[in-house]
């Protein structure tokens, strides 16, 4: 708008907002609504999980024996830790500390990568046992002895869909954190403007929370 003098508007403020508060509140509410859509997106899978579990409770108890509780628990700790560091990054931004944002983002990033590496070993171990998703499902050796239930394939379809979709969200989160780390390196954030850190933080907490539901539902049955 031509008749607004540019001197009073900070550089980060987009032209269609009245002031920084409005911009920040809009972005934050937007992220919350987006998180609602994410919950419903996963909600479909949780519904499938619940329905099959109520039909075949014994299947779930049997199949979850093949999931490694130790590695699942370690991954849970890793993700909760990363939620802490992402919250610390937001705090750093609020206190004008771009270096703090950068360091905390790098730690979060590292924890996210650790999560994915553990997930990779879990997946490859299952593939090694012949537990492939869907049509290639053909358990061998000890897995074949445990998985006697005729619908074992469906449990693992749900497992792979849920953890796979969650994994994709972790990867997207890693991308976002690289972006934020670069911005922090360039001193982009301040107490007046840290919207990207805040909304990515919200997203990352959701990724964390979904895992916190997945872990007991898949690993801790019985």
């Amino acid at each position, binding site marked *: *708008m031509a*008749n*607004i*003098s540019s*001197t*009073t*508007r900070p550089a980060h403020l*987009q*032209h*269609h*907002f*009245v*002031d*920084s*508060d*409005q*911009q*920040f*509140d*809009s*972005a934050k*509410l*937007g992220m919350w*609504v*987006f998180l*609602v*859509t*994410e919950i*419903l*997106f*996963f*909600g*479909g*899978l949780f*519904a*499938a999980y619940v*329905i*099959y579990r109520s039909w075949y409770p014994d299947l779930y108890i049997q199949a979850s024996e093949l999931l490694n509780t130790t590695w699942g628990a370690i991954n849970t700790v890793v993700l909760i830790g990363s939620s802490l560091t992402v919250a610390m990054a937001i705090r750093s931004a*609020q206190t004008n500390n771009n270096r703090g944002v950068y360091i905390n983002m790098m730690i979060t990033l590292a924890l996210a990568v650790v999560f994915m590496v553990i997930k990779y070993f879990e997946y490859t171990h299952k593939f090694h046992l012949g537990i492939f*998703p*869907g*049509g*290639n499902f053909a358990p061998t050796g000890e897995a074949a002895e445990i998985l006697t239930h*005729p*619908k074992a*394939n*469906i449990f693992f*379809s*749900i497992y*792979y*869909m849920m953890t796979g*979709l969650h994994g994709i969200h972790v990867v997207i989160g890693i991308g976002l954190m690289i972006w934020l780390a670069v911005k922090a390196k360039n001193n982009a954030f301040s*107490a*007046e*403007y*840290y*919207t990207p850190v805040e909304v990515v933080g919200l997203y990352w907490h959701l990724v964390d929370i979904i895992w916190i539901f997945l872990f007991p539902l898949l690993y801790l049955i019985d």
Partner: protein
Amino acid sequence: MSTNSTPIEQKTKLHVQRYVQEENPAVNYLNAKSGIMSWLGTLDHKRIGVMYLISISFFFFVGGMLALLLRTELWTPAKTIIEADTYNHVFTLHGAIMIFLFLVPSIPAALGNFLLPIQLGCKDFAFPRLNLFSFYLYVFGALFSVTAILTGGLDTGWTFYTPYSITTSSSVIAMTMGVFILGFSSILTGINFIITTHKMRAPGLSWGKLPLFVWSAYATSIIQVLATPVLGITLLLLIMERVLQIGIFDPALGGDPVLYQHFFWFYSHPAVYIMIVPGFGVISEVIATFSKKTIFGYWAIALSSLAIAFMGFVVWGHHMFVSGQSPLASFFFSFITFLVGIPTGIKIFNWVSTMYRGSISLEAPMLYALGFLFLFTVGGLTGIFLGTLSVDVHLHDTYFVVAHFHYVMVGGMVMALLAGLHYWWPKMFGKMYNKTAAFVAWLVIFVGFNVTFLPQFVLGSRGMPRRYYNYIDEFQALHQISTIGAYMLGLGFGIIFVYLLISLLKGKAAPSNPWNARTLEWTISSPPTEHNFEHVPVVLHGPYDYHFPIEEFQLGVAGGHHDIDVHTEKVVTKPIETEE
């Protein structure tokens, strides 16, 4: 500090002045920038709205041509012009294109994109880039759908029911991928609408002063945001079913096809309300404007939109009365389906009450609104028949359902879209259209529509199943009447296309408020300038305050707020006293 959120009103004192708009500005949003890239890369919500309008019109044309092909084939009981397999492809594509590429984005994405920020008194949506991104997702999703058509077509019906959709050799993956992407486009539009309505309203524009179009767009956005992700995951599971045989929906692998139906209708029933609720908003605006009367029951209309949105989530099972769900579930679904009739009825009665003793002028938008009232009421009431358990067992999957759905979607939504298009056309393009031609087109469409679909109620109640290529000889007369009606409909839409094109090329310039309406978009120029408002507007009146003469009906200017330099030649400097 950003987290410190003191209300604007407390922070800066608003200095309110009256303001008169400029008529037909030389520079407006259409000609401010030129070149194809200024359109394709635009962040202006008005231009994005126009691009959506062009896209949905194109797909409406494609879907309509497919419909004519279907009706032509049904001229005789056996083969008329196309093979049975082709017929299956054509009805699937007609349904999928009309629903996912035309109806779902139609009013929200085309008219809503154009109007919502203006009606809220702001310069743009909260997230203009997201808005453009959602348009490209739409284009991208459409490309996937076109790919599906070119690489083997689709013969599952628009519902993609398993197990057939898992085994058929047609391009299910490309089409569902397309719909999946279109869903994200719809979600992003919904998020933008919700946030903009919450956070971007102009000073003075309280929730009780929102135009009803905004209320309906808001209710629609809630459905889009809550229902569409479920469709996303459903289609993703269907794609995985085909790619990896995950078995969740496939009975051959121990899965459950009825679970697919539950998932699908959990989205697709609310989606029906995504398609119709924005239409309610248009009708509210048009009926108030052309009755020149304050809308009757503002809050009843506003809140019934939300009621429909929420109830829409708990009726999906009425699509599955004969799918083997438990009789108890069917009973509840049937009961709640009847309840949806209440908020819908509230709207109809409020509209009729608004017209009662109003000064009704039968301009083109009002004609379509009246058409809507008749046709949508028929569509709604036949929905009650279908929601009745015992009746539905007889009518399920017959032409009765087809006729019901088309009365709601064409008689309701398309009529509302046309009402809105004729209503806001002068605002969007700054041109008037030929009113006589508009009347003729309306008459042809209204008559043609009834000739097409009334016989289908009769056919359905006599047992003609939907989606069938052949039928018994006794049905031929009714089928032929229906086909003639379909061609009349096609003719009507053709007339509209021609006179709107003429209007664009050499129509009379439109004044800023041709209908003497009261909502914010009529207080700015036609067509609007790039930033809609040259000043931060202050809303002084309600959107339906027809008891004020139009001269008193002006927009305030927020002065002293963030150094706004007031153009004195445009502003009538008359500070107002406390008005309300």
